[in-house]
């Protein structure tokens, strides 16, 4: 073993991580002394001489910022390093530096050191490290100096392939096998597998059984969305429901939307608004990983969805994120066993999103953050990506003879069984057992992948990303019906000792699989070499229909791809759709509307998200024409964001709709409402309502519970109904089910029905976009849409408490599509000065946000409803406030076909006035809004 050297690097000024730690400890009720310090550790194994150490020191330590020492620290501290097998990108940098300096290094690793100073007891120090600093899922730590840090490959007995005598197992044996290997397969599926191998007359290998577990996982196979569903208990009697995925597809096919190029096929949807340029869009969930390792989970969630867009041959141009967390102020005592605190999850997730997007160089532009106690144990992370490409025919390979080529990072024991893990219910032990399911992303490698692959579209016949299920999923899907023959030993490894099934299933990040006609292989290799990304040629697509995987001279898997993809027995499920109240509306009475408005503005769901938005680079590429923050002080919320190349006339708008609280009362109404909200957001900013494409993301509880599946059925039916109503097709989607947590008390905690709709729409004239910040005093304010007594699931109820009979959730608005077309015409005609949609908190919150954006007042003279509480706080869909110059009110009303009501005037007076309500000072609005968020 070569000698080990360790360099401890400290900052001269206070390390910001130390400050963050003191703050975070404060939230846990622990006061840390100001002496807390954090240092970086670099471990190098190799025969370094004094001169070598001096030169390494020179590169790694900037004397104006830091000091470094090769001596062991004498003061007490806790040191943290990554677990074996977890990617250590900083160690790569150390090796690179040594290489450039011509210093021979055998191995490198990095870590960090926390010193508490003062009189912090070992117990408190351990709790701080455990709760706030390290994550046992990816890291280990010890008091004093950590030695030896795990530099070398994890110990392993050497690659082996097991065979499993599945043919001989009875049902109990099958279930035991399922549990032992965490397969998450149904008994029907296990029986089918047993029957298949009885037919084949041989045992199944561990590689094969893992391939089936992955391919047939809920995550990859969408078993619920493809299931035969019987809906029971509805007033009109039982009925057979068209499988959910088929409903969405049929819905899109029934909509006349000539701009759709590809829907529900491949990695992402593809649309073409402007002839010559196609747009790819996709949104994904990364919920389970984010619950146990928030940074890595969110990080790789973003990385994965970017690869989806790259995996349909488009250059990624923007990222979106919608995040759902438990309450940030949850008392520690109420935190369920094994769960991370919502505040820590939030910090980690936001850091993870920011880290990936910022480093890969994509603007994170649109999003939302929602808080609800039901998300405490099941935080939700929705990441989306949009890409563009010059129009070309979609890739239609692979073809027999094409090479099976993997490009990108090396494979390690990361993310093993992530697909099955993501399909299971979590409990207190999930964090421990799921360790290997979590990965750390490397956005730089993915940036190199983009550089290598964008522009190489003519060099491959098919492309897909390695996501859940790794090579197994990527190559398995590409080989469907055609077959492939691959040599596993050619897959680049991070370290030796991996079993074949681990290599095949590993979800190591930042890898793409491409089918390359042999004559193009050299050209693609040259592109990869130029940017410094690894390419491995694993074998060929054969045309024989079998998926053959080889390792160490033997066949470790030989699977009929038709059986693999079509052999899974269709799941039969029963749904019991609830019967929502849609007729008995119930009003609310608010004693002090002004104070209530301020409470709503300060509610974390509504309050400013500026602190988070500023953590994301939303300026890179120079294309963000309408930003997520708008107005005089850049603190007003935008509706949609608009992206356009700096000199382009046309662009695209992105809008988000999400409201799980409606879903608790009426899942179908929720679907209509969030589709409406997403579309309204893009229309409000200047997009064409007749050129909108939609993405769906469902995060639900366990669909085997009939009521939960019933809500899912209603939500899908609502999505399809809304898509038809607005003539806006779904082009891609993703479902994440089993977002449940089994508490140590035996209680199941499920997320509320959470449907996120992303709308991407065409903006014909980017120079005349509209934002919600009020423009000028004296202008007229008009309301588009009608206000009803719709309070079920409202934020008024979240703030003041819901009555026992909450009434109705906001119902669909059949007039909305026509209203939006008229409004769009008004925007194109230049009549609209500002415009804002009404959502959580209703009219009062919307007009307040417009005042904040423009730092102007408003005088609301005419309420849109006789009941003041309904007028101010009801959340009826389909409504927008529009600011128009007084002399153009008549013109506006004409364009709107009379379907708008003048409600007030913009004022210089720094307050917001409603009839019969105390004026609310603008400063109070700003304070409430800016003070309540994160």
């Amino acid at each position: 073993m070569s000698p080990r050297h360790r360099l401890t690097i400290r900052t001269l000024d206070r390390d910001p991580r130390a400050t963050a730690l003191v703050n975070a400890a404060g939230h846990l009720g622990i006061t840390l002394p100001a002496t807390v310090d954090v240092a970086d550790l670099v471990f190098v194994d190799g025969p370094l001489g004094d001169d070598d150490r001096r030169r390494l020191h020179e590169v790694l330590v900037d004397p104006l910022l830091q000091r470094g020492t090769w001596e062991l620290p004498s003061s007490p501290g806790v040191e943290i390093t990554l677990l074996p097998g977890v990617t250590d990108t900083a160690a790569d940098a150390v090796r690179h530096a040594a290489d450039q300096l011509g210093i021979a290094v055998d191995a490198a690793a990095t870590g960090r050191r926390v010193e508490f100073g003062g009189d912090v007891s070992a117990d408190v120090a351990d709790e701080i490290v455990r709760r706030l600093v390290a994550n046992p899922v990816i890291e280990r730590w010890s008091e004093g100096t950590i030695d030896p840090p795990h530099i070398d490959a994890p110990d392993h007995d050497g690659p082996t392939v097991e065979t499993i005598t599945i043919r001989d197992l009875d049902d109990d044996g099958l279930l035991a096998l399922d549990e032992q290997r965490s397969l998450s397969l149904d008994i029907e599926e296990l029986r089918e597998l047993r029957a298949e191998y009885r037919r084949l007359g041989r045992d199944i290998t561990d590689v094969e059984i893992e391939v089936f577990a992955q391919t047939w996982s809920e995550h990859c196979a969408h078993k619920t969305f493809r299931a035969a569903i019987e809906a029971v208990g509805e007033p009109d009697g039982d009925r057979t429901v068209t499988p959910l995925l088929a409903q969405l597809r049929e819905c899109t096919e029934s909509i006349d939307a000539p701009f759709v190029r590809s829907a529900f096929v491949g990695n992402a949807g593809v649309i073409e608004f402007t002839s010559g340029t196609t747009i790819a869009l996709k949104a994904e969930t990364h919920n389970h990983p984010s619950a146990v390792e928030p940074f890595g989970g969110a990080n790789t969630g973003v990385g994965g969805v970017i690869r989806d867009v790259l995996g349909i041959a488009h250059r990624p141009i923007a990222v979106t994120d919608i995040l759902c967390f438990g309450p940030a102020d949850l008392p520690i005592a109420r935190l369920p066993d094994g769960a991370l605190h919502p505040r820590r999850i939030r910090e980690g997730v936001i850091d993870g999103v920011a880290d990936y997007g910022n480093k890969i160089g994509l603007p994170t532009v649109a999003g939302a953050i929602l808080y609800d106690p039901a998300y405490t144990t099941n935080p939700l992370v929705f990441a989306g990506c949009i890409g563009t490409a010059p129009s070309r025919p979609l890739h239609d390979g692979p073809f027999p003879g094409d090479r099976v080529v993997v490009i990108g990072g090396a494979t390690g024991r990361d993310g093993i069984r992530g697909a099955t893990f993501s399909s299971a219910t979590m409990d207190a032990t999930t964090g421990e057992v799921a360790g290997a399911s979590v990965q750390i992303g490397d956005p730089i490698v993915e940036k190199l992948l983009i550089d290598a692959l964008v522009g190489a579209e003519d060099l491959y016949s098919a492309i897909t990303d390695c996501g859940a299920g790794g090579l197994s999923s990527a190559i398995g899907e590409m080989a469907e019906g055609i077959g492939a023959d691959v040599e596993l030993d050619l897959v680049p490894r991070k370290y030796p000792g991996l079993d074949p099934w681990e290599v095949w299933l590993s979800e190591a990040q930042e890898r793409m699989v491409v089918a390359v006609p042999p004559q193009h292989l050299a050209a693609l290799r040259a592109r990869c070499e130029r940017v410094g990304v690894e390419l491995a040629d694993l074998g060929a697509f054969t045309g024989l229909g079998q998926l053959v995987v080889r390792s160490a001279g033997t066949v470790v898997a030989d699977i009929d791809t038709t059986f693999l993809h079509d052999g899974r027995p269709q799941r039969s499920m029963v749904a019991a759709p609830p019967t929502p109240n849609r007729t008995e509306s119930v009003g609310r009475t608010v004693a002090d509307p002004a104070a209530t408005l301020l409470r709503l503005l300060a509610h974390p769901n509504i309050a400013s998200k500026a602190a988070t938005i500023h953590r994301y680079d939303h300026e890179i590429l120079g294309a963000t024409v309408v930003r997520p923050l708008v107005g005089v002080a850049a603190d007003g919320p935008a509706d949609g964001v608009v992206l356009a190349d700096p000199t382009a006339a046309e662009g695209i708008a992105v809008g988000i709709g999400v409201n799980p609280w409606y879903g608790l009362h009426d899942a179908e109404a929720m679907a209509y409402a969030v589709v409406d909200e997403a579309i309204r957001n893009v229309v409000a900013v200047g997009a064409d309502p007749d050129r909108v494409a939609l993405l769906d993301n469902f995060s639900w509880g366990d669909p085997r519970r009939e009521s939960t599946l019933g809500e899912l059925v209603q939500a899908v039916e609502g999505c399809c109904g809304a898509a038809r109503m607005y003539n806006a097709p779904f082009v891609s989607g993703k479902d994440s089910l089993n977002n449940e947590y089994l508490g140590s008390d035996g209680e199941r905690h499920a997320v509320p029905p959470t449907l996120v709709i992303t709308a991407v729409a065409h903006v014909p004239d980017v120079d005349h976009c509209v934002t919600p910040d009020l423009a000028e005093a004296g202008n007229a304010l008009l309301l588009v849409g009608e206000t009803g007594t719709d309070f079920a699931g409202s934020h008024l109820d979240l703030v003041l408490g819901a009555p026992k009979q909450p009434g109705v959730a906001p119902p669909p608005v059949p007039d909305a599509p026509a209203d939006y077309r008229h409004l769009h015409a008004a925007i194109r005609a230049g009549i609209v000065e500002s415009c804002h949609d009404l959502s959580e908190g209703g009219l009062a919150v919307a007009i307040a946000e417009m005042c904040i954006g423009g730092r102007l007042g408003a005088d609301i003279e005419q309420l849109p409803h006789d009941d003041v509480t309904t007028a101010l706080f009801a959340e009826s869909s389909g409504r927008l406030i529009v600011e128009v110059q007084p002399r153009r009110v008549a013109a506006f009303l004409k364009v709107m076909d009379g379907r708008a009501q003048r409600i007030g005037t913009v004022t210089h007076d720094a307050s917001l006035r409603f009839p019969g309500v105390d004026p609310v000072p603008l400063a109070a609005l700003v304070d409430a809004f800016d003070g309540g968020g994160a």
Partner: protein
Amino acid sequence: MSRVPAVVVAGPGTNRDRDVAAALELAGASARIVLASELVADPAVLDGARLAVVAGGFSYADSLGAGRMLALDLAVGLGDRLRSFVDAGRPVLGICNGFQVLTRTGLLPGALGHNAQGHFDCRWVVLEADRSSVSVWTAGVDDPIHCPIAHGEGRYVHPDPGALARNGQVALRYRSTNPNGSVDDIAGVCDPSGVVLGLMPHPENHIVARQHPHHRRGGGGERHLGLRLFDNGVRHAKEL
């Protein structure tokens, strides 16, 4: 009139190279994005350029300090060629990560530490050119430049900022808001000759008026474009 040949230097993880190329093109240069490894393999590429920009991003993921590995690549790979480029009076610009790289190569003074607020920050800032600066990039820029920052390690550190200013090397200062705790509000510094400029903010993201966040409200405008810095650099290169 022929366009000024310019190179945009990128490393693994550089991500604003295309933004810089767009700015250079708009300013009248002919921009080519080259990887540091390509420059090292074929230094003639550098010799053929009249202007060079080290673009922003996260070269080598900012591991163990922003810009250090790319600076090492350039220092080891190019040796004195970068110095000679500067000695020939050809303008060099380092933006964000590029600024961090240039301080580490020794072409620019000082260093960039973690932001005072402790995290990455993306927001628009206002920059004022110091009229006593010798920088060719900011000469004659009388109106404030508006553009965004997007960095986590942008706190400018220098042991003697007063001396730096007296020497004409403080090129740009943050006006009204210092977004990262930089000493003396310094946003950009130049070398003693004035041909090398480094700055943390991103002028390449304000090259047309509509990119300004207040464009719709009548804010920004041609006078405040970040493009003006590129105009200056390209003009200077053209006159060489």
